[in-house]
């Protein structure tokens, strides 16, 4: 067991060699704490850490740092998401320090969905630094105890640093090298985009393993259970960077409408079983979008319970 960088539960679980299982929780479009706490209940004890999204799809919601702090108060471990769209380097470093002070130990560094997709498309975006540079900034803050300007930080934030990876975006042949760049920037773990095209993901992981990338960071495979064929169709057509094979849409359409959710869950469970055995995959990141109440059942049926206590 190597020395811990942050001491987060997620880091300890991965470091001990367990197959990690993380979840996701979108904060409310308001200050509705009760709504959040209800979601927390579905996730508690069923996952190792929970991603708290940062104005996902560029829609304004309660801040990810506040959502993460509320989560800690309820006994769950957050994975604090931060996007480059809304903050410059000053605000980012400030929020990272604040997040750490509130007990947050994992963070996920992202570019952020473009604001034209969200509910304030008139907004000015920031993009002072990009997600790759954000990773290196958090690493510098953690390992060197310095701000970007090289001045000392009084109690550095010891974060377990995560990032995303989309093997299904183009140009495909470059994606594994971009992952390697994220590792060089200092990433400790990766959560991939939702995987539906298993053939392509197998090929991607083979390339990553051939380059030894799985030995330099933990790769968690992204899983999203489809609620129905309509959702699959919509994501295929309208969500950028999604690769949904026709075979999956056909499979969902092949059963009665009332049984499509179950078929979607079955596909997700089959994926999780394969990921458990796939070389280089260290865990699963379950993105049950607005379907948090299904997480306990999915975790149970995926045989990932109880979660390890390290």
């Amino acid at each position, binding site marked *: 067991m190597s020395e811990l960088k942050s001491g987060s539960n997620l880091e300890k679980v991965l470091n001990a060699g367990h197959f990690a299982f993380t979840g996701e929780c979108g904060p409310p479009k308001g200050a509705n704490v009760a709504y959040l706490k209800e979601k927390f209940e579905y996730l508690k004890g069923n996952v190792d850490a929970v991603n708290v999204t940062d104005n996902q799809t560029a829609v304004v919601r309660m801040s990810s740092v506040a959502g993460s702090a509320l989560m800690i108060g309820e006994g769950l471990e957050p994975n604090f998401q931060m996007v*480059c*769209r809304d903050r410059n*380097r000053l605000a980012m470093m400030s929020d990272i320090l604040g997040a750490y002070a509130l007990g947050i130990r994992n963070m996920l560094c992202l*570019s*952020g*969905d*473009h604001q*034209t*997709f969200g509910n304030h498309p008139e907004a000015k*975006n920031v*993009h*002072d*630094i*990009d*997600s*790759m*540079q954000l990773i*290196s*900034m958090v690493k510098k803050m953690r390992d060197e105890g310095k701000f*970007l300007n090289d001045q000392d930080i009084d109690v550095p934030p010891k974060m377990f640093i995560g990032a*995303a*990876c*989309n093997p299904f*975006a*183009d*140009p495909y*042949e*470059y994606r594994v*090298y*971009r992952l*390697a*760049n994220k590792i*060089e*920037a200092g990433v400790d773990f990766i959560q991939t*985009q939702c995987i539906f095209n298993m053939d392509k993901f197998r090929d991607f992981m083979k390339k990553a393993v051939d380059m030894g990338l799985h030995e330099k960071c933990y790769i968690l495979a992204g899983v999203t259970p489809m609620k129905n064929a309509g959702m699959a169709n919509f994501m295929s057509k309208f969500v*950028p*960077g999604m690769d949904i094979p026709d075979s999956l849409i056909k499979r969902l359409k092949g059963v009665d409408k009332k049984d499509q959710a179950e078929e979607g869950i079955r596909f997700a469970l089959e994926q999780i079983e394969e990921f458990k055995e796939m070389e280089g995959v260290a865990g699963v990141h379950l993105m049950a979008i607005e379907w948090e109440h299904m997480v306990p059942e999915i975790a149970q049926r995926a045989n990932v319970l109880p979660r390890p206590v390290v």
Partner: protein
Amino acid sequence: MIVADRKSLKEILAMVEDNKKILIAGCKGCVTVCNVGGLKEVEILASSLKIARKKQGNDIDIDIKVLERQCDTEYVAEISDIVGDYDAVLSLACGVGPQFLSEMYKDQIFYPGVNTTFFGGATRHGVWEERCAGCGTCAIHNFGGLCPIARCAKSLMNGPCGGSSKGICEVNKDTECIWDAIVKKKMEAGKLEDLIGVKGIKNWRTARDGGPRRSIREELVQGNI
């Protein structure tokens, strides 16, 4: 060059609503090249405004003048004799023009007749595209001669993001993903190594973020050249 689009006739009519006599000032610089503020466009706008106002039963007198450049005080001075003859002056130059005019003729009202959009060029007849963000520190040689600051929707220096699909940017189906082009160019040239490693954080002080900018060429200021 600087690219601009003309404001709608409706918007311009609203601007000059209270004016009875105006001058439309064109410019022979960039706006002539991008067909928005040269002699032809000035004449067309003058006719359109006159017809529209006639329909309203509220005739307007319009004179026209196309300056050599509106971004140079020497040429802006050319209208000093006539500028006071009008209720207002409508400039069809880029955003620089009506400001140079406003600064020189403090008692006159100047309206911008165009929306200045970007630094770019014509990719085909009638189509202009952005190429430069004027960030003040050009580094396109590090990106295969293509600028991700101006041409990536997120100005990524380490792209492409997860929204790149078949060479198209997720933000607009008519926009190419410049990072797709950068990667393909490097790969085809066998220069993948240029894209290995992290491109460092940019210093934005030379961009607009450092405050309004000024460029001083000492040899010219001193009159040596």
